[in-house]
């Protein structure tokens, strides 16, 4: 097959960095292939993607060696703006890449820059709107769209220039499961129907492996640690990084290895026909018989003039890990912020360790309740990680040993480094460390696994279990059902600002059409995680 992209002895180091981000990369991507780049954060995935349209080195600067050829064009010769006709690029955060306010304006923006004639432009706008399924939204303001719709606008804007290669850098990391599904379905259609070459970097393999033809597992410096079809590569990866359905397949020796729930169901049927038994489903653990440390009663709250929480009753006990789940806009973040006094409630009462939140200043509440927002890196300001933790301690009567906290989070070596010099995942852990060092008895986490790789997620799970064992009450708003199934002791489902379900994870997630885990979709009953059936 003709190569669409070839890397010839590519090496690269960012300006003022001694360490190389890419080291002697020598491989290619065939035309019409849907390629997935997987691997830990900091492995060079984003840098590699930016080489394909010349952002590296034209925009980034730095020391670049070797050659990247894209359909015969050398990216060191052509700047990214010239490569825009050949390579479409979609970034992680859809909001950060928009220039205009309206869907069709955004799609037309790139074509206007390239002087595409108006009639052609109109035709292409209509075509790409149909391709990504946004025709009905062409005149909508982008700010009013959901995350999945916004990312599809970004894909459409890239497609409008009729690129031969579409490059996407973690396009679903900021999206809920429904938004991610919308985007990936659109990408699958583009690859199947139009033969578009697609290169995608992603951590959430459970979402993407069923769509891709080829997978490259990257190690340090962008070196390929494993390469092949997902069925070839997944068995070589760390268990935690493998999608649950594939973990079950590997454990049970299924061949071919299932990549989707649909594949897995066929294998389960074969097992059932062969009389293969699975262990009985475990039961939810009972709630601890302790007095609640957080108690909200009749809680109503508004946001932007709209009531987003209606008469919510909610309790959390020491050592519990409560997962708040629900669609975007269901009130999860508002509930979290109401618990620590950052959001003023309209009605009802919230008590944390006996303190009335309405009459206690959030800074005083911070002595007992820690809050890690969706974008925790925005709280970092100090020169070193150690200073960041010392700052929290300077506002506390007590607290934990900073060295112990850093070790728990895998940051023992990072104490003397500047937080902004660390990778995105490491910075998020520094922010978490800055909260944990204060020794909160209640911890509120808002989407803590957004953009996290498998290793970081595993470390987070271990940390949460450690804190639970110490009696810390944890409330976590998340869309990550697999994480919830792994570590939550209770799940509260919110729908339109109301509690629609509250119970153990097996009771709440099992059989749910939207919140069931992959394993539960395969086996039903109370099975949630691969360990339940292996």
């Amino acid at each position, binding site marked *: 097959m003709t190569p669409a992209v070839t890397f010839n002895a590519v090496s690269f180091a960012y300006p003022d960095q001694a360490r190389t981000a890419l080291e002697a990369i020598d491989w290619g991507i065939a035309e019409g292939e849907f390629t997935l780049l997987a691997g830990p954060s900091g492995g060079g995935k984003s840098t590699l993607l930016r080489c394909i349209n010349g952002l590296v080195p034209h925009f980034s600067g730095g020391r670049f060696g070797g050659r990247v050829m894209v359909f015969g064009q050398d990216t060191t010769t052509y700047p990214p703006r010239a490569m825009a006709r050949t390579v479409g690029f979609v970034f992680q955060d859809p909001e950060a890449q928009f220039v205009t306010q309206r869907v069709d304006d955004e799609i037309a923006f790139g074509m206007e*820059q390239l002087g595409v004639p108006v009639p052609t432009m109109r035709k292409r706008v209509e075509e790409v709107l149909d391709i990504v399924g946004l025709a009905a939204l062409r005149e909508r303001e982008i700010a009013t769209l959901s995350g999945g719709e916004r990312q599809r606008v970004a894909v459409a804007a890239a497609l409008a220039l009729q690129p031969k290669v579409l490059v996407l850098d973690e396009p679903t990391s900021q999206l809920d499961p429904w938004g991610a599904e919308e985007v990936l379905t659109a990408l699958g259609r583009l690859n199947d129907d139009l033969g578009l070459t697609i290169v995608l970097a992603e951590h959430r393999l459970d979402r993407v492996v069923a769509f891709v033809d080829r997978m490259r597992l990257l190690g340090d410096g962008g070196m390929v640690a494993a390469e092949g079809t997902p069925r070839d590569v997944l068995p070589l990866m760390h268990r935690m990084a493998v999608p649950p359905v594939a973990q079950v397949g590997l454990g049970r020796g299924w061949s071919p290895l299932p990549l989707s729930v649909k594949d897995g169901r066929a294998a389960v049927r074969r097992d059932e026909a062969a009389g293969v038994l699975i262990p009985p489903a475990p039961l939810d653990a009972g709630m601890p018989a302790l007095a609640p440390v957080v108690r909200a009663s009749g809680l109503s709250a508004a946001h*932007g003039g709209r009531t987003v929480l209606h008469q919510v009753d909610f309790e959390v006990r020491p050592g519990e890990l409560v997962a708040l789940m629900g669609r975007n806009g269901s009130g999860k973040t508002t509930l979290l912020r109401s618990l620590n006094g950052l959001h003023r409630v309209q009605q009802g009462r919230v008590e944390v360790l006996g303190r009335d939140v309405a009459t206690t200043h959030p800074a005083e509440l911070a002595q007992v309740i820690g809050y890690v927002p969706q974008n925790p890196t*925005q709280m970092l*300001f100090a020169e070193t990680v150690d200073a960041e933790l010392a700052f929290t301690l300077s506002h506390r009567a007590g607290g934990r040993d900073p060295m112990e906290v850093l070790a728990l989070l895998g940051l023992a070596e990072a104490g003397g480094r500047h937080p902004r010099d660390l990778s995105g995942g490491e910075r998020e852990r520094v922010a978490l460390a800055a909260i944990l060092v204060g020794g909160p008895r209640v911890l509120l986490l808002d989407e803590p696994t957004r953009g996290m790789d498998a290793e970081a997620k595993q470390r987070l799970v271990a940390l949460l279990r450690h804190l639970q064992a110490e009696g810390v009450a944890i409330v976590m708003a998340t869309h990550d059902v697999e994480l919830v199934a792994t570590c939550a002791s209770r799940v509260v489902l919110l729908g339109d600002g109301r509690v629609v379900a509250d119970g153990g994870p097996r009771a709440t997630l099992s059989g749910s059409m939207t919140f069931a885990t992959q394993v539960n979709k395969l086996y039903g009953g109370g099975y949630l995680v691969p360990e339940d059936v292996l």
Partner: protein
Amino acid sequence: MRTAPIDPRAWFIWAIALALPPLVGRNPFPVVTCAVVAGAVALGYRGSGSGWGTVVRLAGWLAAVGVVFNVLTVHAGDWVITTLPDWLPLIGGPLTWNAALFGLVSGIALMTVVLIGVTLTRVLDWVAVMRMLPDRFAGLAAVGAIAWTLVPQTGRALTEIREAQVARGYQPRGVRDAGPLVVPLLAGGLERATVLGEALEARAFGSSATADATRRREGFLLLLAVTVGVVAAYAVMLRAVVLAAVLLAIASILTWLALRTPSDGIGRTRYRRIAWDRRATVIAGASAVALVGELVVLVTSPGAFAWEPYPSMVIPVANLLVLGCIALLLAPLAVQP
């Protein structure tokens, strides 16, 4: 489906006419009238543009600080409130109502200009502005549009950062404690700017750019035109009408010379242009009448805009023509959807 935007040119004329009185003088009558008109229109078009609340509050805070600063440091005027001991540096001396009132009017003038800016943010279609400008100014317009959207974004980011730090137990007590708020704000802003820069490059932005030599020549001529224009505006304020007319003619010729060279980059195309409709005619018409009226009064009777409460308090002049002109600037409310 959203209402079609109004032609940006109409809004620009409206903004210039409304900003002129508070910028050229401190007469409380036109300044307060402008503030009322700006507030009414800002409220009338408050549908979008969230995030500006912080900016308005900040402007209000600065205006209040301005009043206090004026009272404490300007020891002129005949209506004395009280007298602080002379040995107090800077603030020692008589504190006067004259200074308080002048500071208050200055604060209202500042708030008026901010409200005009907020209204423009809410109503202007910056993409339409970008499309309206010649290719050589596309970069400038894009930078303006992005900078304009960054203001409310920065406001929202500041709120989020402040909340995150408060939830960490932090309670700022003064300017010296601003580090935990300012550093993440600046770092986050730079990171956002980098991503946006990458996105613009990746989407062919700048393909219509002209060669460096042409751009330098254009830049020089335009800078010269702006300088001559500023001198012309000063001549208008001095009522040297003939000199002002000559200078404006020179500025116009320089601008024409700068723009007549065709761009040597890729010619941009426009996906859509905003149609000039009845609403634009109403706003531009009323605003043009108001602007002409204000300029005529500015040349013939500058006292209508000025007020000097030092050394003695005087009652400001109320010029009904000026107030009538400003009232015309409520026109956007008449065509509001």
